[in-house]
């Protein structure tokens, strides 16, 4: 099958088929195309092939959406993110309520391990979640840095540990995945 139209159409269709079934589905199309070419019956084999590719994209795209796991991963990552925001709010409230003034680094020493624990638990619930969660933390802190930069009030020494926290959460996700025996 060296026809350029067939190759392009097949490549487009294969984007909608999971890797595990790609070989079988494309093989089936190739087999029928070869049979139609050999027998010379029915419509032109090229027309049959292209018609099937066009008609196959909507059901395959829909099946792909139904199978997708990313909404759950994003949901767990967002839940972890909001839990982190809630934890930070509670710690700030607790620090302000104390009769003595406590340094920011002490609050961070309490808060950061909790965030790492949240990242680890999110990863246990769903694979690759802590990578998304860490990316959300990094995006948030990058947005805060950009905002501070615009207002000319940058506190990079205060924000730098947050970047490390985001990276550490991602590292936890990668390390947990590697230790899983079923990791592929």
């Amino acid at each position, binding site marked *: 099958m060296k026809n350029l139209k067939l190759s392009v159409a097949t490549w487009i269709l294969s984007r909608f088929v999971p890797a595990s079934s790609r070989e079988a589905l494309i093989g089936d199309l190739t087999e029928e195309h070869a049979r139609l070419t050999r027998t010379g019956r029915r419509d032109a084999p090229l027309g049959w092939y292209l018609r099937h590719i066009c008609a196959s994209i909507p059901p395959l795209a829909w099946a792909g959406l139904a*199978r997708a796991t990313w909404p759950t991963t994003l949901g767990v990552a967002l839940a972890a993110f909001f839990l982190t925001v809630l934890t930070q709010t509670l710690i700030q409230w607790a620090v302000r309520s104390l009769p003595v003034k406590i340094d920011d680094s002490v609050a961070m020493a309490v808060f950061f391990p909790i965030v790492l624990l949240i990242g680890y638990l999110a990863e246990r619930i769903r694979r690759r979640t802590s990578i998304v969660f860490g990316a959300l933390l990094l995006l948030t802190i990058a947005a805060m840095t950009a905002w501070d930069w615009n207002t000319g009030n940058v506190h990079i020494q205060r924000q730098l540990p947050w970047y490390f926290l985001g990276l550490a959460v991602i590292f936890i996700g990668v390390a947990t995945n590697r230790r899983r025996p079923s990791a592929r």
Partner: protein
Amino acid sequence: MNKRDESLGSVEHIVLLAVMRLGKDAYGITVLREIESIAGRNLSIGTVYATLWRLESKGFVKSSPGEPTAERGGRAKRYFRATADGKNAVLRTHESILKLSSGLKGLEVGK
């Protein structure tokens, strides 16, 4: 599996019957040919595969890799066979169709 997952949609019903008819020779394109020739329904190969994946996720069919052939460009087949749950689902669907159609003039099976 919840109640909704136990039921068969009309395309699922047809595809599962075609898989059962074909037995050991059931794979994507043979299922499509069977449906076209016996039921006269024109489905796309994508619809057949999407339905087979749905049936597999419901536990109504099982798939296994087959042998690659030259006319397939060296690509392997994926064979499908109906499971006991799949056969039960077909039976249940037939029973409910029979019950619903019984007593309706002109719709009794075999008349």
